[in-house]
């Protein structure tokens, strides 16, 4: 009996690596600590009613952001481990297998479990406030999306200590990701973790398209929407068309592994290259999905801190929409070496170059917005200004990569690694940081310490260039990606050491950010005014943090940058818009179903990984039962009475 348990445990848990053992112990300890704190301070009920069952878009947004920052930490530690190995290739700090696992999880986590949730967090917090709505179109579905993402991410992460991590690269190309190439369980964790969270992302895409098209405040025309809302719209439309492809592709890979199908196998008539085409039909739009909202954030910030209307509003909208369209026609540039012939490669090279044009339009629009503006430089604006040159270089190296014949040389080298890190860090991460700093006072009602933010800014930026500029050179010197060792006589070590130093500078920058948040909480100073930056759009017209119902009265919109125009009118001595009488506000009730249903998905997914029918069947039944319960429940909403709104408003505005 005891031996049986021992056998099982040694198969169940990942064993034999001191680094992982340390992680297991620390995870177990922190779990115990969390359980203890929650029980000791009697916070279980609070956690359940205020957060886990909440359908409030602001709380869901905050949970997304917390999860993404945790994932940023994990993905960042992965990156540092890889950089250490590459700085000292003669020491076997990470063996080949461990190194493969780490670059795989680093990629998946950074794109799918860091960038995506950080993006969704900002969508959730900002979009309803900017369009003058009281929530998203489908608050229940929104909560479900979050918990599907969360449990999908947990399922993926648990592979680190249970069962073994995936190690076939972040996009898991077959035949390596087939049973023949990856017999372990890591690949199954990969499939189910991404599948479950991917369904959540798809639902979020639909949710926000409906929210933006149907729930704008009275009077707000499409061409008066803040640019961030436009960028969310274009991103969500892209999600709607791209994510079903991911769902199918992962499902087919699952059938190959689980039922012995022959979609992507080398035998039985399967075609591995089809997987690579399909995954990039999702994967290329995916990188635009994450960058488009960053463009929107920069547009908001540039305009707010230049005290000017955004330059070229219409061309900006056109650029966003055409990027989201063209993003579906560039996928084959990820594998020009497939052998599809000159004409096909020429087509994809041209579309790739073409998509740089709308991006260039946007850069000029930002520059012209700043031109002759009264510019100030708090942290959000610093990130924006730092982004522009960084992204231009990253974009130009992308155009170099799009030249198909040249790509045969750059392909899979560190030149490519440097390129996509430059657009993803310099574009996406800088963009979301800028957004986080910009909207932080709106989310929490206090400001972040500017001085520490500047330290973090400089460490991030200097660290970035020190880390990635040498990698362009390394790529041209012939260093390929995904190698954990190289010979001293290749001459790559000096640049690799510099690159590693840069990575640690970025690690230090992250510590500054954590310190900044902790410091700002400790010296908490409540925002007196909801309008932290003298902003232009509707979210700044209400108190910070926003009350449950956001707007006591729905705003009547007449202009682009309506709140700014309103302030101008008041300054000019014109009468403010008359206040309509308060009316009861219709709100959705909280629900535990999204959480429970996602736990059921997690159970089913975990069961599929181990092929444990006793977990798969109850898990799937649980999912179905949750859906039916929801279908049969009609009591899903309530009204906030007028006197309660009056009390809340008086309390919030009274501190002014």
């Amino acid at each position, binding site marked *: 009996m005891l031996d049986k348990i021992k056998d099982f445990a040694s198969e169940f848990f990942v064993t034999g690596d001191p680094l992982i053992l340390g992680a297991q112990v620390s995870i177990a300890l922190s779990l115990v600590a969390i359980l203890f704190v929650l029980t000791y301070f009697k916070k279980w009920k609070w956690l359940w009613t205020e957060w886990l069952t909440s359908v409030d878009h602001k709380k869901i947004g905050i949970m997304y952001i917390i999860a993404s920052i945790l994932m940023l930490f994990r993905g960042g530690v992965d990156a540092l481990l890889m950089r250490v190995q590459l700085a000292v290739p003669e020491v076997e700090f990470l063996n080949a297998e461990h190194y493969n696992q780490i670059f795989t999880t680093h990629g998946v986590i950074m794109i799918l479990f860091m960038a995506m949730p950080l993006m969704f967090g900002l969508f959730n917090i900002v979009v309803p406030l900017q369009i003058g*709505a*009281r*929530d998203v*179109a*489908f*608050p*229940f579905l929104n909560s479900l999306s979050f918990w599907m993402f969360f449990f999908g991410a947990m399922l993926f992460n648990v592979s680190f200590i249970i069962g073994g991590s995936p190690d076939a690269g972040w996009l898991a190309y077959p035949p390596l990701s087939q049973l023949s190439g990856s017999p372990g369980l890591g690949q199954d964790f990969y499939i189910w973790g991404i599948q479950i969270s991917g369904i959540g992302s*798809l639902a979020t*895409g*639909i*949710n926000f*398209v*409906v929210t933006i*098209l*149907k*729930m*704008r*405040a*009275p009077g707000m025309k499409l061409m008066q929407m803040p640019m961030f809302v436009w960028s969310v719209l274009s991103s969500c439309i892209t999600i*709607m*068309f791209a*994510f*079903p*492809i991911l*769902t*199918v*592709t992962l*499902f*087919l890979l699952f*059938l*190959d592994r689980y*039922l*012995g*199908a*022959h*979609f992507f*196998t080398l*035998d*039985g*008539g*399967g*075609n591995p290259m*089809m997987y690579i085409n*399909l995954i990039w039909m999702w994967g290329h739009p995916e990188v635009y999905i994450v960058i488009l909202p960053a463009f929107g954030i920069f547009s908001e910030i540039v305009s707010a801190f230049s005290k000017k209307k955004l330059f070229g509003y219409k061309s900006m909208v056109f650029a966003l929409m055409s990027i989201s369209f063209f993003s579906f026609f560039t996928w084959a540039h990820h594998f020009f070496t497939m052998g599809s012939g000159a004409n096909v490669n020429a087509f994809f090279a041209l579309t790739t170059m073409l998509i740089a044009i709308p991006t260039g339009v946007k850069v000029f629009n930002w520059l012209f917005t700043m031109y002759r503006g009264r510019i100030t430089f708090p942290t959000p604006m610093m990130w924006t200004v730092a982004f522009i040159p960084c992204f231009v270089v990253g974009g130009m190296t992308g155009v170099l990569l799009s030249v198909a014949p040249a790509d045969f040389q750059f392909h899979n080298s560190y030149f490519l690694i440097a390129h996509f890190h430059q657009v993803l860090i310099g574009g996406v991460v800088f963009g979301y940081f800028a957004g986080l700093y910009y909207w932080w006072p709106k989310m929490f009602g206090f400001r972040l310490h500017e001085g520490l933010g500047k330290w973090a800014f400089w460490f991030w930026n200097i660290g970035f260039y020190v880390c990635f500029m040498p990698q362009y050179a390394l790529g041209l010197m012939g260093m390929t990606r995904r190698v954990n060792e190289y010979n001293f006589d290749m001459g790559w070590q000096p640049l690799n050491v510099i690159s590693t130093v840069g990575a640690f500078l970025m690690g230090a920058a992250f510590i500054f950010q954590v310190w900044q948040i902790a410091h700002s909480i400790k010296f908490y100073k409540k925002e007196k005014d909801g309008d932290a930056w003298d902003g232009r759009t509707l979210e700044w017209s209400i108190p910070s943090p926003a009350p449950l119902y956001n707007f006591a009265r*729905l705003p009547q919109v007449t202009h682009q940058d309506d709140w700014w125009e309103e302030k101008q009118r008041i300054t000019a001595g014109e009468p403010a818009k008359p206040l309509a009488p308060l*009316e*009861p*506000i*219709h*709100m*959705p009730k909280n629900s535990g179903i999204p959480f429970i249903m996602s736990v059921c998905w997690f159970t089913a997914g975990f069961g599929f990984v181990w092929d444990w029918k006793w977990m798969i069947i109850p898990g799937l039944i649980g999912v*179905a039962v949750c859906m*039916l319960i929801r*279908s*049969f429940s*009609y*009591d*899903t*909403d309530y009204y906030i009475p007028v006197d309660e709104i009056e009390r809340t408003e008086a309390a919030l505005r009274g501190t002014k």
Partner: protein
Amino acid sequence: MANAVSTPAGAHGGHGAGHGGGHHDGHHDQESMKTFGFWLFLITDVILFGTLFATFVVLRLNTDGGPTGAELIEMNGIIISTFILLTSSFTSGIAVLEMNKGNKRGLILWLAITALLGASFIYLEVTEFIHLVHEGANIGTSAYWSAFFTLVGTHGLHVSVGLVWMIALMLQLRRRGITPVTKRKVNIISLYWHFLDVVWIFVFTIVYLMGVM
């Protein structure tokens, strides 16, 4: 649902009060928003099936020396099940007409007929799959059969989900009658049902007519 029934809904999923003009009880908005959201979901489902069709077309000749579809598939059963599914689309249309007339019993009756036709379609499909497996073609036989079973099976799974959903809806209709909420739900499931019919026409054309005959 644009001309929703005037009976006030006691309880309905909703919150976007007052958006888009004068009326502050947002249920018209809420119900039409859900229908719009469902249209968007159908777009994503089109992409899902599109990917499966593309996969099937790419792999249609990859039988790896094993049996081909033309050798094993019995077209008679397929033609019968095609007519059954097309008829069920028609009956679901009648159900919606009955609903618009305000006839609760007619609505439930025609939904039940639709569900029965759907169930016979699934029965025939399962029988066909069992037949194929007996003839030596399963999901692991070759890439062709992997793509065949996945595409046709995904459609069948959609129909089965629709059946459970339809039964749940009939129970709700019996208890609550025709309200703006149940009306929206019937309209949505009827959209879904017609959509599955359209997908089946493509399955029939691409998988069976072009692939087998």
